[in-house]
């Protein structure tokens, strides 16, 4: 039976518009938006490290210039913000790990908290190695 045949009004479904500020509606949405934004700062750190490598490879003078440039307030400010975002990126990535991987040891599933702990442990070990290489 058609809508007109049944005497019903023709269907006119209402679509709720998505607000431009939808990501402010919930804490989890905001955190998600910030995490997505964090990839820009991860890319910045990659670019910054590459610039450092190029400067080191170009000799003492360009290296000193790079250090002077890095010490400018706006570069420091940018790097502090970038560090915060990269930290957010790393923490949310680690927290996601037990969702993505179901690890079994001796036939038993490993607790999610243990998977997260293993990631942090590996992070600390890598950081210690990096610090040792830089400071030795």
């Amino acid at each position, binding site marked *: 039976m058609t809508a007109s045949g049944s005497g019903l009004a023709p*269907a*006119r479904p*209402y679509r*709720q518009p998505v607000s431009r500020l*939808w990501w402010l509606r919930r804490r989890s949405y905001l955190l*998600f938006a910030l995490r997505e934004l964090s990839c820009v700062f991860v890319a910045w750190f990659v670019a910054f490290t590459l610039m450092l490598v190029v400067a080191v490879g170009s000799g003492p003078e360009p290296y000193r210039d790079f250090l002077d440039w890095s010490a400018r307030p706006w570069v420091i400010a940018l790097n502090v913000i970038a560090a915060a975002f990269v930290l957010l990126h790393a923490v949310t990535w680690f927290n996601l790990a037990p*969702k993505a*991987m179901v690890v079994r040891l001796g036939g038993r599933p490993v607790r999610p908290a243990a998977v997260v702990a293993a990631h942090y442990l590996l992070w600390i070990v890598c950081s210690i190695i990096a610090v040792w290489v830089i400071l030795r």
Partner: protein
Amino acid sequence: MADHDTIAVEVTRYRPEQESVPAPQCYRVPLRKEWTILDGLNHIKDRLDGTLSYRWSCRMGICGSCGMTVNGEPKLACSTFLTDYAPGSIRVEPMRNFPVIRDLVVDISDFMAKLPKVKPWLIRADEDEQEDGEYLQTPEEKEAYQRYSMCINCMLCYSACPVYALEPTFLGPAVIALGQRYNLDSRDQGAEDRRDVLASAEGAWACTLVGECSVACPKGVDPAGAIQRYKLTAATKSLKEFLLPRGAR
């Protein structure tokens, strides 16, 4: 009836022949300890206003029909109690991210069209004869997929998902979780058949892990987890195909 014996329920009405946009309508319903939002709506429908439209069936969190937005949260009306919101008022709106047909009734045809795409049934390369008996499974094998099999298709996860709101082509949380439910079943051999759909740009890769689907799920299915697990499976498989010779995959 005294005011403290009742609670205000603000229901979003949309009658396409009367309103061009949905508008709230307020009712007062008895505040009873054992009454859910659904009981409140049934009271409105039976005693106060017979024109109100909404979906419901089982009243016990199994049929998945009564998904609604209650005070901004995606909820099953039959599992959400009036007293949890007292004193104060309750705002009942249709599920978000779906076109509204009338009042609290939404159009679910998009979900219904997507669901069979992941072939949510057991696929076997060769069926055993009936006299060979059942396909046996150990408790561990059952546990591997059981969580994902609890889905009741209520679509609250779609209502909670901002990716689905912005990109309606996204397969969505429940459909991907149901694909995983069969992929992880030891009796199933259809993972390869589902891969084109699940590992597509509209499939698992469209998910950016907001995680709200798992928060909204009334059955503890954890669709967000299912999707992330599938991403890892799909990526590992692609990498193996790229690196390893055919025989070693």
